[in-house]
């Protein structure tokens, strides 16, 4: 039950963040989508034994998170919640790939360890990017951007409605699960029979709701077309934002900046 409420709250909270009014929130959703996709593309394009070149990419979240006013504690909580999955998918690397890859002093580090670490870093960067995108764009912003990128209207519209009704149906689901739990007294009432009936009812209610929503749409003259007043016009700041980041990502991708810095530093010391 706790996790039911949690996933709903998470969604709720991210949605709440997206109603903020920072400089980032005001940018055109399209450039934000492009920038984040560029970021992810650059991050995952490294080969698997790469670590140091990935690190400069942390500048992106480091800059975006404070500018967008995203609470770091919330992000950490979410991140830690997801971390076990990343560990699960990466843990096989150190097991299957034991060949020594590098030496730190006398210590041999296996290739698997390196690639495992690399997976964790990729994971961190990519999920942070996704959260940042939603937190500064909002889901409807993303839908609008998709529509502008010529994604079919049917898809965009039902995506928008899906999001709208998540809030209604999730709270219905949470309340029904609550009602079941209150009269269950432990595990007994949580078996498959009440579950099926509960889900069945939720489905029937949903079905009726869809009919009513459709009637409401027809009552307002709906004939297959959705209009939305949302004049999207690229401003200079939008273009600069996007190009500046993409340029940085390319630089980060091409040059192993930590290595360069490291050489300078160690070289200076030696």
């Amino acid at each position: 039950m706790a996790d039911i409420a949690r996933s709903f709250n998470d969604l709720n909270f991210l949605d709440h963040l997206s109603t903020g009014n920072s400089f980032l929130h005001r940018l055109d959703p399209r450039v934000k989508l492009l920038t984040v996709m560029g970021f992810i593309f650059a991050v995952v394009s490294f080969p698997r034994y790469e670590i140091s070149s990935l690190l400069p990419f942390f500048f992106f979240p480091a800059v975006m998170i404070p500018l967008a006013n995203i609470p770091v504690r919330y992000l950490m909580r979410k991140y830690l919640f997801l971390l076990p999955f990343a560990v699960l998918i990466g843990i096989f690397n150190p097991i299957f790939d034991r060949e020594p890859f590098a030496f730190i002093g006398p210590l041999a580090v296996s290739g698997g360890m390196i690639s495992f670490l690399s997976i964790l870093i990729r994971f961190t960067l990519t999920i942070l990017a996704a959260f940042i995108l939603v937190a500064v764009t909002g889901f409807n912003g993303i839908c609008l951007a998709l529509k502008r990128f010529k994604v079919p209207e049917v898809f965009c519209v039902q995506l928008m409605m899906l999001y709208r009704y998540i809030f209604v149906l999730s709270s219905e689901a949470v309340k029904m699960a609550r009602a079941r739990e209150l009269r269950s007294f432990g595990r007994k009432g949580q078996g498959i029979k009440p579950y099926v009936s509960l889900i069945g009812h939720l489905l029937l209610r949903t079905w009726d709701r869809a009919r009513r929503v459709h009637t409401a749409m027809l009552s307002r003259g709906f004939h297959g077309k959705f209009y939305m007043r949302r004049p999207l016009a690229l401003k200079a700041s939008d273009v600069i934002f996007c190009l500046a980041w993409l340029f940085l990502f390319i630089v980060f991708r091409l040059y192993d900046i930590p290595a360069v810095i490291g050489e300078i530093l160690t070289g200076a010391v030696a």
Partner: protein
Amino acid sequence: MHMADALISPAVGGAMWAVSAGLIGYCSKKVKEDLDERKVPLMGVMGAFIFAAQMINFTIPATGSSGHLGGGLILAILLGPYAAFLVISSVLVVQALFFADGGLLALGCNIFNLGFFPAFVAYPLIYKKIVKDSASPGRILTGSLLAAIIGLQLGAFGVVLETLCSGITSLPFTTFVALMQPIHLGIGIVEGLVTAAVVSFVWKANPEILDLKASTAPSPIMHARQVAIVLLVAAAFTGGFVSWFASEHPDGLEWAIEKVTGKEELENAYNIQDALAQLQEKSAFLPDYSLKVSEAAAAQPGQDQDPRLGTSVSGIVGGFFTLCLAVLVGFALKKRSAGSW
């Protein structure tokens, strides 16, 4: 199971994005041709329902663990394949954005694995064939069970192939398959049973619900041949794309930049070599393809232990420095923004 960004290469991610985007376009066209605009709100609300339903668990008897409704198959049964595929894709989009289930780049793979197989294979070729037009609890049960199991097995195998093609994990093919398929057998059985039970429930309560798609969709079924074609195209696309990319242009991004900047040689020679070696092995589908670095190192004449040692020490120092810098920048901005807003 969702594919994750952390495990995927841009070539595989991009190729699967293209395949999924094509399918979304195709299905949108089909739904539009359907001319049943009732479906648009229905699709939206049903997507939200899948979300809501996944929040509710039940106790799986005798195991103590809990399960919930999967979604793909029941959507296909209720909405027909085209609408269902769009709805599943939408659910995955929301999950990728809000719950970081998978990730943005892996979205293409996930849509294909979790959307294509239930909507265009499991439902029309298995469920539909078994249930036909004469629904009965027994048929619904058999159909759902088989369809869910096969759909999930295919999806899991998709995950395996896509992951291995990407070459980030070191897991050998056989081990990976031996791990994924049985787990998904269990999940498939549970999903099949639950789907059957819920479908029977609403079918008894309101048979009209199951009639909707039959009455509106002109020919709701993709034929086996078409399915095979899409699968083949997807496989050829992925495989071909990857191997072409790997052989011609060892590292996509660098290749592109090289083209743009006209730069002949790139510094990160060992990256390229490494990637080349990996990708060639991968695209050959060798059972034990896990790349041994010593081999890779052997393939790199200019590289011996010492420079690598140097690289790693300075790399660690530089990396640490970079991270500190990033954190500092973050804190500075945080201070400033706390002050100014």
